[in-house]
């Protein structure tokens, strides 16, 4: 990916606190947060209007769960880079999300540094 081009980040998480935490923590240059979504449907709507290139995705959400959302987003944009963020209760679920097209996994709880490292790696993928 071209480093000079700005990356557009969408945060998908049903928890307000988590969304704000990611917003606050994110400090990678060239990454612009284009919006946050509280569930899968909102994420798809937001994707249509703001065309994010990067996504942080919670797995357990109401309405449409993270895995389905990953699948739909990848279906719309095969180049989209998705970082799945979840408290890791079940590795099989995380692996399923990666099979559906996510690029990486970050385990809750995480530090600011871990988030930024993960986002940096997501960009270089």
């Amino acid at each position, binding site marked *: 990916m071209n480093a000079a081009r700005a990356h557009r980040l969408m945060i998908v998480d049903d928890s307000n606190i988590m969304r704000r935490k990611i917003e606050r923590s994110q400090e990678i240059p060239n990454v612009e947060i284009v919006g946050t979504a509280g569930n899968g449907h909102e994420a798809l709507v937001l994707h249509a209007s703001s065309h994010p290139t990067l996504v942080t995705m919670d797995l357990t959400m109401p309405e449409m769960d993270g895995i389905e959302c990953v699948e739909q987003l990848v279906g719309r944009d095969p180049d989209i*880079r998705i*970082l799945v963020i979840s408290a*890791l209760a079940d*590795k*099989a679920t*995380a*692996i*399923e999300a*990666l*099979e559906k*097209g*996510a*690029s*990486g*996994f*970050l*385990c809750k709880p995480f530090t600011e540094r871990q988030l930024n490292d*993960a986002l940096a*790696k*997501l960009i*270089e*993928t």
Partner: protein
Amino acid sequence: MKRRRGDFDLAQLLPVAVATSFAAVLTLLLTFGIQRASQLQSASSALQLASELRSLPQYFGTELTLIQRGLEARTFVAEPITDIATAREGFDKALVRIDADLVAAGLGGSADIQRVRGALDAAWQRFSPLLVAIGRHKGSPYADTLAGSRLNATGRALKADVDEGLAAQAAATRDVGGALKDLAGGLQDTVGSRGRSLRTFLVIGAAVAGLLLALMLYFSLRSRRASADARRAERQVADILGTVREGLFLLDRNLALGAVYSASLTRILHSEIVRDSSFEDLLRPLVPAKTLATAMKFVNLLWKEKVHEDLIDTVNPLNQIEVQFSRAGGGAESRHLSFAFKRVKSAGGLGEHLLGIVTDVTDRVQISRELEQSKAENQAQLDLVMQLLQVPAAQLQSFVRDADMALRKSNAILKQPGREESELRTKLNGVFREVHTVKGEASALALGSIAARVHQLEESLVALRDRAHVDGNDFIPIVVRLDELMSYLGGIGQFADRLSEVQPKGDTMKSVVPPLLAKQLLTTDDPSLEQLLTQVVREAASAQAKRVALACRGLDLIPAPYRKAAKDIAIHMARNAVVHGIEAPDARQAASKPDTASVRVSFEANGTDGYVLTVEDDGQGLPFERILDAALRKGLLSPSDAARMDRSAVYGLIFRAGFSTAEQVTEHAGRGVGLDAVSQAVRELGGSIGIATADGKFTRFRMKLPQPGDKIAATHAA
């Protein structure tokens, strides 16, 4: 250092290219040389012929003179005539051969040689016809007359030709000989220069050949060194693979194992690696099917370009797994393995392989567990000390003595011979009773930590008792726990001893412990049975959320020989009364009974026959149906037995080993061992147990004991 494929090929091709060009030059040189040599040979041959021919004009002169003299003397002259013809033909042929040699020697175009050759031809053509003419004269040259022989016409013609020949001979000798001399001289020069140039060629050729040899030697040495380097590198790789403690292996896109892997792999996985086997096959015997499926999915993720390998570390299901390896002599051994996977990158993308790394992390896991355990133990130690401080030292010492005795008795049971399944089960029940008694006493003294430890041993025994089949091997954990428990109690014994040394005049303790505790610590006498029972009932009632009042009578009258047994029995029965006899508060309320239940324990003389220890509660009574059900369920009796049993026989079942109606196992009761321990103790003392109960009203156990002198069983004198 990066090395492109092209560089490598060129380096390999260089010696071949150089050798080939050298060989071509050498071939060219040799071709020239061979050509020069054959030219030289032709020139030499021509030279030799020319030299030989130089004597011929002289020869013709001699022969002609012979003919002339012969004719004068009228002798036979045919022979010299033939000789001349032969020599002349020989000369002609020699000239043809010289011409051929000259052409072969590459002198066909040489002007000098051709001029000389022309002169030779001219001189010969002048002389040769004269010789031809002589040869033409056939028949005798003489005519015989009476006056003697004289020349006939032929003879005269011959004589004329011979004379003419002789006349020309001098000139011919000069001209032909001179021409031949010139030719020979020219050829001599040519041979000389050709010989020199051939030598030069040969020297150059030898030099080139030498150089080629040297080059070949150089390249062969270099390739030898290169292959030695390659071999050394190969050996080093083998050394690394043979030495690393990690199991290293490669997986291709089909997740098949590569041919090269570290020696540790077979050791860590406890299995030989079959050629071309798949990773899945390798893993299958080690992990549950579900983990296997997840693991294969995970490994396949690494082939997806889009997935970042560092960002999926945490979902690796093989990150730390516990696996079971069967041991040679039976049984299994549990190990902890950790698998990691790395992409082997090649220029511009994913390579052909994943590198797998497996490590045996059992030690690490063990250490971290031990650390956690020791943390927990420290906490337990602190708890224990707090508990121990609340029990008077003498009481503690007596507890430790009794417990040690019980554990020794357990050990003695284990030590008895008997290998049959039924014998093993008898041992199991025996150990169980002893251990359960210790637990009961520990709870009675509110020594929760000790009770918990003993409870663990009890758990092991229960686990064993529930097995379909037991053998001696299965007792190893039991004896190990027993050993640990003895050490543990030994430590507590020491603590109690030290405590008893500091306690008697222990005003100093007051300053560091609360007044109530200090009062207890200062009590040096054994606590009375009543105190113990109060404690037991309070503990059990609070654990069960029941309200119970205890009433005791005559307990200080128990004769010394019965004190220990009566204490054990009373503790068991009182706890049982609270746990099993007394109903839950709401059930009591529903039955319009007082909220606070009552448990009574009394000891009194039984006329002159001995004594009776009574434990009575105002609870629900013995549940006849449930006892029968439980006994049937546990296989303690058959349905036909059950049909024949009367009420009192059914109640008797509760004293059988392994009987328990309590649904939940707690530290307080429900193991089904309390009552059979009581029954055993009473029997050992030569006594008997009587039961009286009424549904929803009360249960009363009367333990009748003979006069102490009558039968003193050495119950605890193991």
